Each structure stands twice: as structure tokens, then as C-alpha cells.
């Protein structure tokens, strides 16, 4: 075995996952849970607890019917232990929603402090919705946000305050087209509603942060964003969980409506613990001259299936998607991006960077679909994977389907190992092997890292550097 192979990668590459920060302690105290077989009664009970209007209860029931009719996709892997009958579908953390950190129990605040959320909220966010289990526990909004007329609310509250808008958009951008989307529609709880009025530009981000506090939870938060004409918004989604005794299941949904000339950036830092099975349904509809940018850093979870997608409905609409994925210790990360070009002169660009290590499996699964009439559409996809050892595996399943003769589509992908030559060069310049590895990986993901807000980029960079710091930080 060469010296390089002899190096224990486990001691070299380690990521700062939230579970390492939060440890094994469950978050929150006495909780009220709704569990049992998924049935109309269970749906009604969730709806009753939330004091929902009857239309929402009926909608939930309709999605339950669809869920029961649809079959489970056969190609999913790594979800063998998922038993829907043993999950809690609604977990009330027993903490009323507050508007300041001081009003929240100290042990919970401590968790958010450890994760850097409290500091981030104070220093660079315009708004924060912190959710524990199934309910929002803290809502912080700065005056600047409210002055501009932006609505930033937990979705439950928006159901009462803005019923027309919710009825128009909720599960219309991502209809229940597969079993787990339908399940989400039936059981959704928590999440955020954001409305940005016409001509309002929000340069400072707002964030929703989701914490799963205990094992065997089903987490179904829903984020709905409407960016009206000529507006802009940067939304950050963060998620984390402590190390759990058993699995938990996250089946979230993000729906974004990007109006004419509007611009939305949606950044996710997925940092679930390695017991979480993570499904996330994300889709945007983009109108004329609108732009959606998905940025995703996928660090945690046992299994992840997520494909940020967009329907480019209006002429000149565009999508960019940048994804960094880490899979390690036998975890499966099935991700990618999907785009449907419908308007003329629409543009899309998908960049995916995956790293498989210690037996991890990364899968890129993407769709580029150009519909008839999407004249002069252009799409470019690049998906690269770095394999750090011979136990790790990867696969790419791009699907390019074109009905439009004037479209131009490009796709390229590469799977690579860390080159011995490059490593040798860096070592000859005075770096030790770990520093060299860290530098190569940082360079590999730099395209996407540069798209992240500084704080998020720092988390991912810190992740790579964590173990390297024992030997000397790079950069």
C-alpha cells in the first residue's frame, strides 16, 4: 500500500456537521406529539391543533387521498428503515412562538448559539424564523424589512392572514405529483411565507432555520415565496439536528414564484445529522425576465433526495443552480437540478460538485427539458465528482430532452480522483499532505463556494478544514 493510501482519510477529511456541534442531547423539553397510522382523523387532528380554516383541512385530505393512490418510487434506495407508521407527524416543542431570544428557554437558545444562528441574525440577517420540530418558536424581523412592506411570517399564520394568496400558490408550483410530495401536502407543518411587493429589493438575506430535536420525527415544513414584479430577495434555508438515537424523516417543500423582472436567490445549507432521511421538493416558476438562483450546500443526512428545479415560463427567464454535495460513511446523496424551458430565450446553468468519501455514494440526477416553442433556449450543465478513496462510489443520470430545434444544450461531467501528480507538486511547495488535500478540495468547490454568503461559505470551508486544523489551516 502506498503512503498515500496508508493515510487514514477518516483522520484527514472530517466535516463540521451540526450533529458534532450539538452532540447527542435532544433539544427541547416536554413535547406534544401526534402519531399513529396516517388517516383522515390524524390529518383532522393536525388541522384542528393549528386552528386551520376548513379549506386547508380539505386540501390536506385531498393530498392524503392522492398519497394513498400513488405508489412508492422503486428506484429509491437507503430508506429501508423508514416506517411511516412509527413516526410522529406533528411535534409541538412546547414553546410558544416569541419575538426575542431572551424569551426562549436557555437550552434551546444555546443550541442556536452553537450553530451560529443567533450571531448571524444579529449581524447580517433582515429576518429570521427559527423552527423547532413542527412549530416556529422565534420570529425576528428588522424594521427595514417591515417598512418595505415585505411579509415574512410562519406559514400557519399566513394561512389566516393571506388566505387568497396561499390558496393561489400553495402546492400549485409543486403539485402532489409523486407520493412524498402528496404526503407533504397532507402533513405539512411549519415553514415560512414570504411576500415581496412589486419594486421592492431586499439586498440583505432573510433566513428560516429548521431544527429536528428528537428521533422518529416526521418534519414537513413548507416554504412559500412570492416575489412580485421587479423585486428581489435572498432567502437562506438552514437545517440541523443533534445526533439521534434513531432516524427522523424530513419531507419538506419549497415553492417559489418569481414574477416578471424579479430575482430570487435561494440558498440552502443542509446540515442534518447522519440519522436523518431527507427528501426536499423544491421548485420555482419564473416569469418573463425573472431569475431564480439555487445554491445548495449539502453536508449532512443519511440519505438525501433533492433536485432544485424551475419552470422557465416567461420569455427571457433564467435559472442558475449551484450544488455542493458531500457523501461519506455509506451515506447516499441523490441530488441534481431540473429545469423546464417553456418561454423563448430562456437560459439555465447547472453546476454540481460532489465529493464522495469513506464509502459515500453521490448521485447526480438531472433533467433539462426544452418544450416546443422555447425558441433559442440555452442550457448548460456541468456535474463533477471527486472520489477520495476506493470505497466511495458515484453515478450520474442526466436526462436531456429537446422538442425545440433552435435550442442549444450542453452537458458535461467528470469523475476524478485526487491526482498524485498534483499532490506531489503541492507537497514539493512545502505543504503537508493534509494541507494539500484541503487546498485541492477547496479549489474543486470554489465555483459554488463563491456563490454562498460569506457565513455559509465559511461553514463549508470550516467543514473541510476541521481536521486539517490539527496540522495547520490553509488559506
Amino acid at each position, binding site marked *: 500500500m502506498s503512503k498515500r493510501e496508508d493515510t487514514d482519510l477518516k483522520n484527514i477529511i472530517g466535516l463540521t456537521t451540526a450533529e458534532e456541534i450539538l452532540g447527542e442531547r435532544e433539544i427541547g423539553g416536554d413535547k406534544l406529539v401526534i402519531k399513529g397510522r396516517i388517516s383522515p382523523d390524524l390529518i383532522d387532528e393536525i388541522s384542528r391543533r393549528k386552528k386551520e380554516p376548513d379549506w386547508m383541512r380539505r386540501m390536506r385530505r385531498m393530498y392524503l387521498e392522492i398519497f394513498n393512490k400513488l405508489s412508492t418510487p422503486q428506484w429509491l434506495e437507503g430508506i429501508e428503515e423508514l416506517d411511516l407508521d412509527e413516526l410522529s407527524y406533528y411535534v409541538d416543542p412546547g414553546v410558544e412562538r416569541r419575538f426575542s431570544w431572551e424569551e426562549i428557554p436557555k437550552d434551546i437558545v444555546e443550541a442556536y448559539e452553537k450553530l451560529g444562528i443567533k450571531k448571524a441574525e444579529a449581524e447580517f440577517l433582515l429576518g429570521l424564523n427559527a423552527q423547532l420540530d413542527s412549530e416556529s418558536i422565534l420570529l425576528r424581523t428588522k424594521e427595514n424589512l417591515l417598512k418595505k412592506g415585505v411579509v415574512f411570517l410562519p406559514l400557519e399564520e399566513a394561512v389566516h392572514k393571506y388566505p387568497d394568496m396561499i390558496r393561489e400558490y400553495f402546492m400549485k408550483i409543486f403539485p402532489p405529483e409523486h407520493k412524498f410530495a402528496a404526503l407533504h401536502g397532507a402533513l405539512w407543518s411549519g415553514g415560512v411565507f414570504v411576500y415581496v411587493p412589486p419594486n421592492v429589493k431586499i439586498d440583505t438575506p432573510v433566513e428560516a432555520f429548521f431544527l429536528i430535536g428528537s428521533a422518529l420525527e416526521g418534519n414537513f415544513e413548507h416554504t412559500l415565496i412570492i416575489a412580485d414584479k421587479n423585486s428581489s430577495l435572498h432567502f437562506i434555508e438552514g437545517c440541523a439536528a443533534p445526533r439521534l438515537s434513531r432516524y427522523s424523516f424530513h419531507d419538506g417543500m419549497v415553492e417559489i414564484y418569481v414574477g416578471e423582472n424579479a430575482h430570487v436567490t435561494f440558498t440552502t445549507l443542509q446540515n442534518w445529522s447522519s440519522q436523518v432521511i431527507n427528501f426536499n421538493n423544491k421548485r420555482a416558476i419564473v416569469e418573463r425576465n425573472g431569475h431564480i438562483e439555487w445554491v445548495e450546500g449539502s453536508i449532512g443526512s443519511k440519505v438525501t433526495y433533492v433536485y432544485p428545479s424551475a419552470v422557465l415560463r416567461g420569455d427571457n427567464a433564467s435559472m442558475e443552480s449551484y450544488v455542493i454535495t458531500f457523501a461519506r460513511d455509506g451515506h447516499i446523496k441523490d441530488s441534481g437540478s431540473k429545469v423546464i424551458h417553456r418561454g423563448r430565450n430562456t437560459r439555465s446553468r447547472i453546476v454540481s460538485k460532489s465529493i464522495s468519501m469513506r464509502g459515500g455514494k453521490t448521485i447526480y440526477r438531472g433533467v433539462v427539458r426544452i418544450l416546443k416553442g422555447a425558441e433559442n433556449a440555452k442550457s448548460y450543465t456541468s456535474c463533477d465528482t471527486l472520489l477520495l*478513496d*476506493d470505497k466511495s462510489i*458515484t453515478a450520474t443520470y*442526466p*436526462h436531456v430532452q429537446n422538442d425545440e430545434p433552435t*435550442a442549444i444544450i450542453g*452537458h458535461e*461531467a467528470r469523475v476524478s480522483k485526487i491526482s498524485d501528480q498534483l499532490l506531489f507538486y503541492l507537497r514539493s511547495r512545502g505543504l503537508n499532505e493534509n494541507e494539500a488535500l484541503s487546498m485541492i478540495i477547496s479549489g474543486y468547490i470554489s465555483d459554488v463556494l463563491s456563490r454562498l454568503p460569506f457565513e455559509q461559505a465559511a461553514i463549508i470551508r470550516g467543514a473541510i478544514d476541521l481536521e486539517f486544523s490539527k496540522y495547520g489551516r490553509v488559506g
Partner: protein
Amino acid sequence: MFIRSLSKNLSLEDLRGLERRIPYQKIHDSPTLKFYTNWSIYDRYIFSEDDLYKDPYVKSLGDLYERVAADIYYLGSKVEILSNKNSHIDVRYYPRKEILEGSVREFFNIPDLFESKMILRHLLDISSGLYIDIKDSSKDLLKIYVGGSFKNSHLSQHIYIRIRDSVKSKILFIVDAPEDGMRTLFNEFNLENNAEATIGFVMFGGSASYNRNYLSLDKGSSVRFFTIIFGGEASTLINSYYLNGERSSVFSRSFTLSREDEWIHNAEQAFLENIDTESRIFMRGVAYDDSKNIMRGYAKQNRDARRSKASVDVQGINLGGRSLLVAAPFIEVLSGDVDEASHSASQYTLDLDAEFYLRSRGLDKDNAIKILLKDYVEDYISGVDEDLQKVFREYLANSFIS
């Protein structure tokens, strides 16, 4: 009975029952395109034992021998060996009954009989088969013409080709279009250690055809496989390369052309099973009018495929008003120690300004497109084996793009 050993002790009747239940296509990963081809067309043609004793329908049989000038004519359930220049080969013919009884045990060395209903249909409806043993190297091109069809029925033809140790051979298949019938042609190639094969495969669509080539490559063997597919109502060609031996390699280059309401489904898939194996898949396609052209490239580098190299490159031009082109270059890497794994896909349009110019000079749209496609076709042809280039050029010259 042979079929029992093939199918884990299932009888013919059991298999018939299974065949009805197995889908034509198991979709795992195609969220937008439901079916790779129009499978309902294949349902029209039901096998009848009586057809085996009839003369097959062969288009313009009179001038066929002159037109194609092949060494082996495999028409319907009959075979004729016209040329004796290929003394280095042995050809044996097997009728349906003998195949089902297991007279040739090499037949149906297929990894998954239950992958698609079409595989079972081919096996259960088998009309006849050829066993070709290539014993010595030869520079001459071995031409095999496959044709014929049974009206409203299913003609199932099967060829097993053994290429012995260190033998170098060149083979050209000309697979004619079935008319008013369905034809399935399965070719199984076994390349023994250090064998080298250059294979050309020219396929004409017709009413319904489902063709598969299975190539098993032993240590040090290599194959260069060149394909052209011309249209068809429902034309499927799936080439599967199993790189079992170390240092075995495949270089595949395919070109598909569809127009009017034709539907082509072409898949090129390589399974790299051993150390130092190499696979290069290169697919090109043109879709015109209302046609559909589905191109799927796939390379799987399994756990033992250390230091292996694989690339999949799928590229197409969509010319039609309502034509559809799908490019799906898939790759799976199960070994962390591969030297190369890459894929690319692109689809683009012709230079519209150039087209406008040509049309303004008096050319009609079809002719303008032909001129603009010339480089694209030449790019494909120039990578084809020299002996095959001439044949391919002739066929392309008669197609709508030349």
C-alpha cells in the same frame, strides 16, 4: 429441457405467463419521457408457428444478391451461405425446435432474461438461429445480410458469433427493414482472449424491429462497433458490451437518423468488470420532421474495474418542427480507483444564418439542411473503420441528409 436451465426451472408455459406480466420497459430514471419507444406497436405482432414454414417476405428478392452481395443471407427462418471465400468460418443453422431443446448451449447467455418483455418474446418466439465460429484471422469483410419478415407476425432471429483466441475479424451486418411484421434480431458475440473485432451494423427500421447485440469480451480482447440506424416506425437497437477480461476494450460509434413520424431508440451500454478495461461510447443523432430520436449512453465501472477508463458522449441535432431528441449519457462508478469517468451531452441547432443564406440562393429547405449537415456527418464517418466507411457512405448517400 434447455429452456428450463436458462430460466431457473420455469417451463415454457410459465415463461409465457411471465412474459405477459413483465413490462416492456422498467423506467427508473426518466421523469419526463415515459417510454423510450412506442411499445404498443410491438403488441400488434403475435408469433405464429405456422409462419415458420412460409417464405418470408423479402423486399425485391430478385436483385437482392447483387445489391447487397453478402456472404451469408439470413432471411426469415432460412439461411444461405453464398460465398466460399470465408473458409476460416464455420456456420451452422438451427431451427426453432433444436434451439429450444438446447442443441446450441451458447445461445441466450443473456444476463437478465427478465429485463424486458421483448427478451422473453424473442426467446419464446424464436424462429431459427445461426452459430458462426470464426477460427482464423481474415482481412476480408464478412458480410451478413439479415432480412425478411412474416406478415402481421413475429420473426425472431438469433446469431451467436464466436471469435477465437487472438483472431482478428471484420464483420458487416446489414439488417433490412421488416415490412408489416415485427422482427427481433439478437446477436451474441463472444470474443475470446486477445481477439479483435471490427463490426459494422447498418439497420433499417421498417414496421417494428427490436435488435440487441450482446458482446462478451475476454482478457485483452477489443471491439470497434460502428452503427447506423435509419428510421423505422418503432426501431430499437440496444448494444451491451461486457468487458469481463482485464485490458478488454470497446470503442463504439453510432449514428441515428429519423424523419417523418419515425421513432428510434438507440442504447449503447458498457459494463466494465475488470482491471484496465476501457470503454468509449460516442453517439450522434439527427431528428427531422415529427420524428423521435432517443439516444441513451451508459457506462458502469464495477468494483473490480480498477484503473478503468470510460467516456460517454451523446450529441444530437434537432431539425424538425415537432421532432424530439433525447440525450441521456449515464455513468455509474462503483470503483473508487478509476482512471477516467466522463460523459457529455449536447444538442444544438444548425447555423440559422447560414441556412437563411443558402435558401436565399435558391436552395429549398431540405437541400440547405443537407449542405449544413455535411460536416456533422463527415465528423462521424471519419471515425469509422476504413473498410466500413465506403459502405456507410453509400447508405448515407441514399438517405435524406445527403
